[in-house]
């Protein structure tokens, strides 16, 4: 079953800027999809269409087969949750526990259920000891985790992530990505993540959608998408560093490399082959 679909979606801003032109994507349930693209390619606009904040000028957005227009807004916001790029946009309560409880309380759950959800969400993001801390006393990485906890507390089926790793240090990036991947595997939550970070993609993401000036330039597994470096350049992207290294080894040093490795593990295997 498809979790999210966009069928011939067009969207333009009031000033006439055509942000999306004929987008067709289909993300199965339980998949971890990444939306890549340069600035102004339409990544954030696409996410805002998928969560119902914006309405497409043409075309349809389907959530589990149902047109988004026919879904009750409360049900939609419970099923499809969004984690914003800037945590300050999303953290509006004074304390961690209050912010995480915001969604479940609005869902009409009982106090006990809300407390239970807050506890499990904090445990999922490994911040159980920070429940009563004020938001302003948290570091940037901790705020990102609290944002994620706030979203998890609503028990969604689909989570949209707008650049979840932006402004994080390398340890923070791998920590949050590991967390997301575990949630994807263990709870079967469908993730749609917009990002610039091409190095992350092959490690964590099952399917890559590349947007280029409002159209889908490529859509497929990372290996297939990153095999065409010209299309990547046109979309203002690049190969992951590992892939770029092996591309140079292949094109300029004449080494026989069939498939460009995109992760450290794949590179290691390829190097062993080269050295043997």
């Amino acid at each position: 079953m498809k979790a999210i679909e966009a069928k011939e979606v067009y969207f333009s801003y009031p000033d006439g800027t055509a942000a999306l032109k004929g987008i067709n994507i289909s993300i199965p349930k339980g998949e971890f999809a990444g939306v890549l693209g340069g600035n102004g390619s339409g990544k954030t606009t696409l996410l805002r269409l998928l969560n119902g904040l914006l309405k497409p000028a043409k075309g349809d957005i389907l959530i589990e087969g149902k047109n988004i227009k026919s879904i009750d807004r409360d049900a939609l916001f419970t099923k499809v949750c969004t984690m914003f790029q800037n945590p300050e946009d999303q953290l509006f309560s004074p304390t961690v526990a209050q912010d995480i409880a915001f969604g479940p309380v609005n869902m009409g759950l009982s106090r006990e259920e809300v407390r239970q959800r807050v506890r499990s969400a904090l445990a999922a993001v490994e911040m159980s000891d920070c429940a009563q801390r004020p938001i302003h006393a948290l570091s940037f990485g901790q705020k990102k985790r609290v944002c994620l906890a706030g979203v998890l507390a609503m028990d969604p089926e689909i989570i949209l992530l707008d650049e979840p790793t932006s402004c994080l240090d390398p340890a923070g990036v791998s920590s949050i990505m590991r967390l997301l991947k575990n949630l994807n595997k263990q709870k079967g939550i469908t993730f749609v993540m917009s990002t610039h970070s091409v190095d992350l993609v092959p490690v964590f993401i099952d399917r890559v959608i590349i947007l280029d000036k409002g159209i889908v330039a490529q859509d497929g597994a990372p290996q297939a998408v990153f095999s065409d470096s010209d299309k990547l350049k046109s979309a203002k992207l690049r190969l992951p560093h590992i892939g770029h290294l092996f591309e140079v080894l292949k094109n300029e040093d004449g080494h026989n490399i069939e498939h460009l490795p995109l992760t450290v593990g794949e590179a290691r295997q390829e190097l062993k082959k080269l050295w043997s």
Partner: protein
Amino acid sequence: MNDIFSDYFAQRDNFLTRIDARLKAVFVIMAIILTLFSQRVFVPWCIILLVPAILLSIKVPVKIIIHRICAPLGIALSILCIQTFYHGGTPIWRLHIGVLSLTAYAEGLRYGYAMVLRIMASTSWVLFLSMTTSLPKLLEAGLWFKLPPAWIEVCFLTYRYIFVLLEDAKTVFDAQKVRLGYTAPFRSLRSLGVLAGTIVIKAYDQSIATYEAMMLRGYKNINQDLAPMERLKTADVLAVFIFGLILIALALNS
């Protein structure tokens, strides 16, 4: 941030911060009222000595306490001067400045002195409340006391976003400073205007983003997350009751 807000101390865990915010709020308000009604100097002196001692016992730095009482102390001393030279009939001292003579009166001095003590004692109580009770807890207490939920909700948002906008303001200020934005008077005024404008724009944009985020989590124009407070603990009630009785006894005797 900590040199602006004493909220930081209210986040710590000690026997005072654990007392219910409702009880502390009621106690402090009653204490201030009793202090203002007291005619003799004994009660205010007790408070001026006791409250800082209590704050020191929960490891609030002396520097912070002194910093907080400086501004009210200045105002209090000026009130003392006005009362001394303005009120009374029994002259105690004369100051001659050319043809002008200023007369200090005993009644004015006494009255002014009592006022200074009342001001410092009342300020001590507010300091006590702010250093042992965080604003979110006070606002929850306010909700319990049936203050309008809409006002409380706006308070919560204000408190939350003070820190965000303060960081933004500091960043913009520093960016202006390193580009010589404050090296001349008119340039400084212009830079301040730009700074204020930048904060307003950021606040507006932040409000839209925050509202969208709230909407996506089911917000419908009223924050239902303002949780009711738990039952009052007997120990807390007893402690506050006993202190309240002591204070009333002192006030009645004075």
